C-alpha cells in the first residue's frame, strides 16, 4: 500500500486509537530512557538507607526500593535494558527470518525444504526450557539472552515471508526480470524485499511482546546478570513481599506489561494500515498464529 508521504501514513495509522496510544507511549519511554541522566540523577545505583521501602507518595510516585532508590527512576533506567533487548532481538530475528524466507521462497525445492524443516524443528523445541538451559550453561549475560530469544523466534517470520515470496515469485515483473538476466541478488533485494517490508514491520512488532516477556521471565528466574532490569527487580521484590512492599513487585511488572502491550497495539495499527483488506482476510489466520508462541 502506498502513501503520499509520512504524513499520510501517520493519519491513516492514527485512525486506530489504540495503536496511537501505543506509539506515543513507546516514544515517551524511549525518550525518557535516553535522557534519564538529565531527568533523574546520573547514577541510579546510589543507596539512600534513610528512605528504604517507602510506599508511593508525591515525592516518590512509585515508592522506594530496598536500597532507598526511587523506583520510578529505576524503572526508567530499566527501560534501557528491556528496549535494547527488544529492538536487538527484534532486528536480529527479522534479519534471520527475512533472509531465510526470501531464500526459501525464491529458490524453492531442496533449499526451501531444508530451511523449512529447520524452522519446523525450531518451532517444536520447547522454547522457555531451552532458553533457561542455555542461559544456565552459557552463563548470565544479556547478549546470550538476546541471541537465544532471536534464535527461537525467527521461524515464524521466515514462514510468513516465504509464503509471500511464493505468491509473488510468479508475478509478471519478476518473470520479466529473470528473462532479462537480472542477478539473483538484484531480484531478491531490489524487487522482492521492498514488497515484504510492510509484512516484516508488522510481524516484527508482533513478535516483540514475546521477546520482552521472555527476557523478563529469564531475569525473574535469576538467570540473568544483576542489573536494573524490570525482571530482576521483580526477583528481588519477592524477598520483600511479605513485609507488605507491594509496589516493588507491582510497578516493574506493570512496566513490562505496558511496554509489551504498546508493541502489540502498534503491530495491530501497522497491520491495519499496511496490509490491504483482501490480503488481510486470507492471512488473518497466519497473523494470529504468527503472534502466538
Amino acid at each position, binding site marked *: 500500500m502506498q502513501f503520499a508521504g509520512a504524513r499520510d501514513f501517520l493519519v491513516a495509522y492514527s485512525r486506530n486509537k489504540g495503536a496511537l496510544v501505543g506509539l506515543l507511549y513507546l516514544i515517551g519511554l524511549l525518550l525518557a530512557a535516553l535522557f534519564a541522566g538529565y531527568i533523574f540523577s546520573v547514577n541510579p*545505583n*546510589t*543507596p539512600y*538507607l534513610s528512605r*528504604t521501602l517507602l510506599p508511593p507518595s508525591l515525592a516518590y510516585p512509585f515508592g522506594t526500593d*530496598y*536500597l532507598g532508590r526511587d523506583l520510578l527512576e529505576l524503572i526508567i533506567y530499566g527501560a534501557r535494558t528491556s528496549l535494547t533487548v527488544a529492538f536487538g532481538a527484534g532486528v536480529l530475528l527479522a534479519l534471520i527470518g527475512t533472509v531465510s524466507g526470501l531464500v526459501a521462497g525464491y529458490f524453492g525445492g531442496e533449499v526451501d525444504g531444508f530451511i523449512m524443516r529447520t524452522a519446523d524443528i525450531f518451532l517444536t523445541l520447547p522454547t522457555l526450557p531451552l532458553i533457561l538451559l542455555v542461559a*544456565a550453561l552459557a*552463563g*548470565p549475560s544479556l547478549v546470550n539472552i538476546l541471541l537465544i530469544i532471536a534464535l527461537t523466534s525467527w521461524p515464524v517470520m521466515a514462514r510468513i515471508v516465504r509464503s509471500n515470496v511464493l505468491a509473488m515469485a510468479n508475478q509478471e515483473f519478476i518473470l520479466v526480470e529473470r528473462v532479462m538476466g537480472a542477478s539473483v541478488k538484484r531480484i531478491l533485494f531490489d524487487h522482492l524485499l521492498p514488497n515484504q517490508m510492510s509484512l516484516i514491520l508488522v510481524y516484527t512488532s508482533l513478535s516483540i511482546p514475546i521477546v520482552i516477556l521472555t527476557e523478563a521471565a529469564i531475569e*525473574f*528466574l*535469576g*538467570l540473568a*546478570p*544483576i542489573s536494573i532490569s524490570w525482571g530482576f527487580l*521483580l*526477583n*528481588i*521484590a*519477592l*524477598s*520483600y*513481599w*511479605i*513485609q*507488605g512492599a507491594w509496589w516493588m513487585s507491582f510497578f516493574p511488572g506493570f512496566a513490562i506489561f505496558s511496554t509489551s502491550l504498546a508493541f502489540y497495539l502498534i503491530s495491530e495499527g501497522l497491520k491495519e494500515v499496511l496490509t490491504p483488506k483482501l490480503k488481510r482476510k486470507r492471512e488473518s489466520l497466519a497473523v494470529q498464529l504468527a503472534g502466538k508462541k
Partner: protein
Amino acid sequence: MTSSPDVTDLNPIRNVITYYVAETWLSLVGWDSNGSFVPQLASSWTVSPDGSVYTFYLRDGLKWSDGQPLTSQDVNFTAYTTAQQSSFWNFFEYGPILVPDSHTPTGYTIMPGAITTPNSTTVIFHLPAPSATFLSSGGSNWIIPEHAYDGFNFTTQNPDLTTLVGSGPFIPRSYVAGSELDEVANPNYYGGAPSFSALQFKYFQDSTAAELALESGSINVLESFPPTDAQAVSKFPGISLGTQEDQSNIYLIFNMSPKLSSNATNPVSNVLVRKAIAMALDLNDIVNSSLGAGHYVLANQIEVPNMLYGGQKVQNATIPKPEYPYNPTAAGTLLDQAGFTAGAGGTRFTLTLVAPSGGIGNAGTGPTVKMLQLIQSELGQVGITMQIILDDTTSYDNAVFSAAPPKAWNLALGIISESADADVGPFFMVGSLSGNAGAGGFNVGTYSNPAVNQLLLEEENTTSPALRIPIIQRIDGIVHNDLPVLELYYQVEVVAYSSNIQGFQWGLGEPGYDYWGNLKASSLAQVSLATSSTSSASSSSAAPSGVSNYESLAAVAVVIIIILAAAVYVVSKRGKRPAQSSASAS
C-alpha cells in the same frame, strides 16, 4: 560451605550432609546448641589420659526401627563402610585410623585392630596418636545397621526408603523428589516413642510461600527463614517465634593468588589492599541495614562469640571489635601505598565478587543482594569498582570450591558453620594442610601460612581444652593481621511454630540437627515442618497422600462439565430472542 538446598540425598555415606539424615540415624555422641557433647547412642564414654584410646559404652537395650538390636558390631560396620565407600567423609571421620587398600572403592580401609568390640555394648577406638578431636569426628558419625546394609553399594544407590532401617525418632518412608519427605515415628527410639505419629518435612524454595503456609496452618513449624521477615511472621495469630544464635559465620573470602585464572592481576592478594577494603566498609551500618538491627551481630573472629569449648569461651578477647574500624580516608591512603592510585574517573581497579543467587545462609536473596550492593557502593567511594556475580548453586560451588586454584574471582561471599570442635572452623577457613587449600578444599581463598598450619597441628594433638584454647587464640591473632577473610556477621536462626507445639530444642548449626524427638504437640496427630532455603524465585511443595491425582482430575473435570453445560444453556437462550437481535447485528 553452602548448605544443601534440598532433600536430595537419603544416603548416609555419600558426600553431602542432609538435614534429614541426621534425624534418621543417630551417632554415638550428639551436640547441643553450645557445642557441648551429649550422650546419644552412647550413654557414656571415656578417653584415655594420653588421648589415644576412646571407649564408648552403648546404652542398654538399643534397637533399630525394625526391632533388631543395635550393637557394637554396627559401629564397627559403619566405620568400615565409611572408610571404604565415602571419599569425602572417610578422612574427616576416621582419618587417624585409615590405611590404604587398593581393593576398596575409595582406596582406603580401617587399620586392622584399630576398632575392638569386647562385647555387644562396648566399642574401643585405638588411635595411633593422641587426638583431641575424635569425639567430634568419629564419635559423631551416624551409625548404620549392618544387618540391613551389609554389602550395599552406597556410591551408586540410595537405600530403599520403604524398608529403611534407622535408630532415630523418625524414619523416612516416602519421598517426593525435591519437595517432601514423610517420616513415621520409630517406637524403638531409645528416648521413647515420639508423641506424634508422623513428621512431614516440606521443602519450600521460596521463603514467602513457606511463611504463608505457616500462617494458614499448612505447616506447623518453619525453620530457616530470613530473620528480616521475623517481624511480619510474629504477627501471625497463634504463632510463636524462637531465636538462636547460629554457629555460622558469614564472611568475605579474599582470593590470595597473585593472579586470577584469567591471568589478570589480583589486587586483593596484597595485604594492604585487603586492609583497605576492611576500612572502607562501615560494616555495622551495612549489616544492620540489610539484615535488620539486633538480629545480627558483627563477628570479628573465626569463632562465633558464644562458642564454648570445654565450657570456656574460645574467642580471643584481645582482638579489637571491629577489627578494622571504618575509615575511608585511611583506606585510600593504603591503596595509594599499595600502588593502586586513582585513574581518570577516580577508579583504581575492578574486582569481581561471587555470591549465591539464593542468598547466603538464611538471609534470602533480597537482603544478601542489598548487603552486597551497599558494599559495592562503599567500595566505589574509595575508587574500587566491584562487580557482583550471582550464581546459582551449582555454578557457585564450582567457581568457589571445586575449581582448582588460581580461582576466577577476587572475592567470594561464604558461610561456614561451626562444629563441636573448636578447630574445625579455623582449619576449614585458613588451614592449608591435607589439600584443604586446593581444589575442593574449604580454604577456597588458598591462604597458606606455615605458622598457622603448625599451630593447627599442635592444637589437634593437644587434648586438654585449657591448653587448646590459647593455641586457637594465637591463630586468631595471626589471621587478624593477615586478613585472608573478612568477617561480616554471624547468623541468627529463627524458628516459627504454632503455639500448641512445645519442646522445640535447638541443635548445633544446621536446622536439621535440631531434636524432633522431644516435640510434643497437644492437639496434633502429625506435624508438618518446612525448611526454606531461599534459592531464586521459585517454590516447591508436597503431593497429597490422601486423594489420588486421578480422582482429583475427575472431580475437576466434573466441575468443568457443569460450567460448560451452563454456558451452552446461556448461549442458546440468547439466540432465542426475537427480531431485535438480528436487527442489531451490523
